[in-house]
């Protein structure tokens, strides 16, 4: 039973340390055992949940609720201040599309490095390059420097690389909102396809889409898990909560 669990967050908390002076960071790192040089700001607090193999988990929450930080912790980009995270399987994070791209290199070269970051071997990347190019659908631009790309083209290529990384777990942060409708539809088809064998964790503000695709939904509110379970009721409740907050502004 427990071998099914691919992601397990136990009491995860993350505090960012806010400094009044830039160099206080160094003082803290060297003299932190002696004196505190910062104010703590807790972004996540006591977050616990488990994701089983093959589940599609949607994450909802308002801006600043801690969703992105949670995904970063699960991906291992940053470490939790308290609690622990255990992940079994290879993750393909689609967090900030094209953030790691170097403008002076061609799309093909960036795809090679992107693939290597995701843990692919060189010949594996080479073998997948045609498929990546096909998926991205940017045609001859693949051999142009990325600095001449449009934002949409960068995102297309970056998504295409992640989509061909052979991952076990796909972690998507708002990434599907990029690109034109045709590309969005392609991405959504890919996510559905992926969901048949892999695990998905997805942050999105398009609630209808999440409700359609998720098995379960996590609602993060003020750094805590406010609800975790079946999508329908949670999304309805979440929608009501944001509407009630938005109402006074509209009135």
């Amino acid at each position: 039973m427990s071998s099914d669990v691919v992601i397990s967050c136990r009491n995860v908390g993350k505090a960012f340390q806010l400094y009044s002076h830039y160099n206080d960071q160094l003082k803290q790192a060297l003299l932190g055992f002696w004196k505190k040089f910062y104010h703590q700001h807790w972004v996540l607090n006591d977050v616990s949940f488990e994701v089983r193999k093959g589940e599609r988990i949607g994450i909802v929450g308002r801006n600043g609720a801690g969703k992105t930080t949670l995904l970063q912790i699960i991906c291992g980009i940053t470490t939790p201040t308290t609690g622990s995270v255990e992940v079994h399987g290879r993750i393909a994070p689609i967090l900030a599309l094209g953030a790691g791209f170097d403008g002076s290199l061609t799309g093909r070269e960036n795809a090679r490095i992107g693939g290597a970051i995701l843990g692919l071997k060189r010949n594996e990347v080479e073998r997948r390059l045609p498929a990546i190019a096909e998926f991205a659908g940017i045609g001859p631009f693949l051999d142009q420097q990325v600095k001449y790309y449009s934002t949409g083209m960068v995102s297309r290529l970056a998504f295409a690389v992640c989509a061909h990384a052979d991952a076990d777990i796909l972690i998507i942060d708002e990434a599907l909102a990029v690109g034109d409708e045709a590309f969005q539809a392609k991405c959504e088809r890919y996510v559905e396809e992926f969901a048949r064998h892999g695990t998905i964790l997805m942050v999105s503000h398009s609630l209808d889409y999440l409700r359609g695709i998720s098995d379960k939904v996590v609602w993060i509110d003020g750094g805590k898990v406010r609800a975790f379970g079946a999508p329908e009721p949670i999304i309805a409740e979440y929608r009501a909560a944001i509407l009630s907050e938005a109402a006074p502004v509209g009135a």
Partner: protein
Amino acid sequence: MYFVVPFERAWHHRELIRAVVRRELKSRFRGSLLGWVWAIAAPLAMLIAYTFVFSVALPVQSQNISITEYAGNIFCGLIVFNLFSELAYRAPMLLHEHSSFVKKSIFPSEAIAWIASIRAFVYAGISFVVLIVFRLVTAHWLPVTILLSPLVILPFALLMLGIVWFLMGLGAFTKDVAHLMISIVPIMMFATPIFYTLDQIPPEFVPWLKLNVVGDYIEMLRALVMHGQLPNLVMYFVCLIVSYVVFLLGYAFFMRYKSVIVDVI
């Protein structure tokens, strides 16, 4: 166990390190007509300049050494020192340069030290080949001991990696490290036997200069490449141990603060 962890991690990320090193080497000369010719032309021009300066402008006093050998000695010292100074200048800024990698993808930031070091060693390697060819052309022979030079270069690489990890970690917290390097590296150049050799120094200063590990490596490499001698074995093993300790401590230091660094850069 602990002694090999840095190597295991690097081996684990070898595909990534290779991909980024290839990119850096390729992009360095992109957009230039002559490309890699520059990588050879720059050290060659330097070597010719030194030969000229010490044969015509500032003739060498010493009788028992030829001008080309003198120039070779200096060039050998400069290859090692330039490698060190390039890394020392660049290391404090490395994480800032790669911040989008480190913050937004699952990029192992400790690999950046390997990437920067390998890059620097590739360029130094080109200069080294120029030196060997120069020596072959001017002296018509090469000492057999040159074959042992990897035994000196590899521990030196460990020393450099350790230093890069230290500076890279500290540099993420404060920009002062970069300024500090700009101030002290040129001074260190005088405390390093580049334009002189240790036997030209008053004996009471020699023990102090020997504390400079970079200088010790220069002397050892010179012994192998220029003089066909074996380096002092005591010195060799002391340098080996010091380098390995710096390597391990640098790695431990960086890994200790790695998770904090992501949040501060």
